[in-house]
């Protein structure tokens, strides 16, 4: 297994952080009880400084010594006794190393991105933010292909979620325009709220599938909680300050009915 990181583990850190110990410790629930793949040997690579360390005591183990239980116990002892190599605590040299790595590795099946931060959202790669989910994904991958090397990438703490407003799809233009007109009609103040509310069942029936959802994105791409299409359409009727609705993306089912629509609202802020 390779553990790839892009920043110092901390100048004041002299032991391996707990979460790294958990990532590196092989689990007993994998397809085989022998550590013949995936983990051995363990390399920890600093991509920002181009240096690495190898936890090499696992090499050259034979027979029963490669049983996962044995290795896990040995590894625990290793972490208790070992102080962190300066390779892992030296200061960062290249700040954009993660982005470059991400660009070439984001879709590889043996590469798992993990972050200790609970706040990363809307990233454009598969991110594991809990150790159990990471462990489960690694095990599944090993069971499918026991010959591959597992690479766990620690997303640097400085990495921020990028606002991810769905891309505009010109092929959807005419349909989007039609939906846009429907939204506009429901918020048209020249008709009474009662008349507009009474239109909603027809709109739902004509355009939306049964459990359709509406996702509102704010102007910089922050995603608000999803809501049912029916609830959202009802909210439009009383939203007097609504100026326009920008449609980003429309997802339709095999019958052409919308099951998810992603939008941004624009408002007149003063009455």
């Amino acid at each position, binding site marked *: 297994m390779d553990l790839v990181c892009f920043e110092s583990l901390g100048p004041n850190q002299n032991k391996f952080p707990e979460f790294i110990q958990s990532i590196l410790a092989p689990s007993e629930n994998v397809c085989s009880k022998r550590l013949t793949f995936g983990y051995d040997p363990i390399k920890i690579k600093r991509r920002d400084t181009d240096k690495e360390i190898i936890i090499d005591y696992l090499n050259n183990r034979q027979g029963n010594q490669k049983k996962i239980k044995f290795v896990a116990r040995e590894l625990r002892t290793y972490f208790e006794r070992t102080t962190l190599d300066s390779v892992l605590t030296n200061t960062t040299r290249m700040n954009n190393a993660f982005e470059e790595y991400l660009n070439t590795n984001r879709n590889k099946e043996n590469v798992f991105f993990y972050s200790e931060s609970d706040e990363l959202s809307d990233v454009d790669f598969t991110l594991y933010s809990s150790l159990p989910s990471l462990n489960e994904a690694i095990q599944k991958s090993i069971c499918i292909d026991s010959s591959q090397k597992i690479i766990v990438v620690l997303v640097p703490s400085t990495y921020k979620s990028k606002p991810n407003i769905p891309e505009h799809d010109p092929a959807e233009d005419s349909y989007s325009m039609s939906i846009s007109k429907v939204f506009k009609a429901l918020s048209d103040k020249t008709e009474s*709220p009662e008349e507009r509310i009474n239109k909603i069942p027809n709109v739902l029936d004509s355009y939306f599938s049964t459990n359709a959802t509406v996702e509102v994105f*704010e102007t910089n791409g922050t995603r608000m*909680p999803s809501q049912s299409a029916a609830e959202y359409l009802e909210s439009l009727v009383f939203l007097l300050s609504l100026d326009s609705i920008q449609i980003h993306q429309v997802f339709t089912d095999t019958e052409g009915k919308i099951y998810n629509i992603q939008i941004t609202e624009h408002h007149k802020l003063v009455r």
Partner: protein
Amino acid sequence: MNSKGRLLNCVLMQVFTLGVISAQPGISEAQFKDFANQAKRQVLVFFDNVAELGANTVPESIREKAISNVTKVFTVNGTVEERSKGAKSGISRPVREYLNVIAQRGQKAPILVSYDFVDPLTYQEFKPVTESDGSIVYRGEMIVKQYYCKLKPKDQLSDKLDSNCSYEDTTTKKVTVEVRLLKSQTGKSYAVLISNIVVLSVS
């Protein structure tokens, strides 16, 4: 305070607010700006629906939808305070109860509501608060002004809008909003909800 004092005060405030923002890992400035926008949107939902409820132009079944729209932009325990001109203290009610009162009052004498954002929430003003379960929510406040007019009976209404109110006031209100991270199967999203509205002054 002299000009140097004001300058120092301003610098200290900048340092303080920057400190608050930079202490919040994982949430970008752009996201805080979005939270501020969404907070305004939720206040607009509140005022727009209250205006419709008080105008008494829609039947009861439709009014119930307006009430439902508003409760969705408040936290579960959200409250709204109301205070009349001259009164020393106001009455704070759970949001649904407040809306029912407005709707019933509107049936007797329609009201008009207008509003303005006097001091909108900006992205620097969110502060992290740790909840009892260890989760972090971000709180922010904004100041709005609401104009309220209880209309005279129909036969007494004139073309002069100024003289059509049997009672009118302008209240300055403080709206507190909170931002909560939600996780679901489809990913992470942020709920921006009003937790309370209190009256600061009535004129």
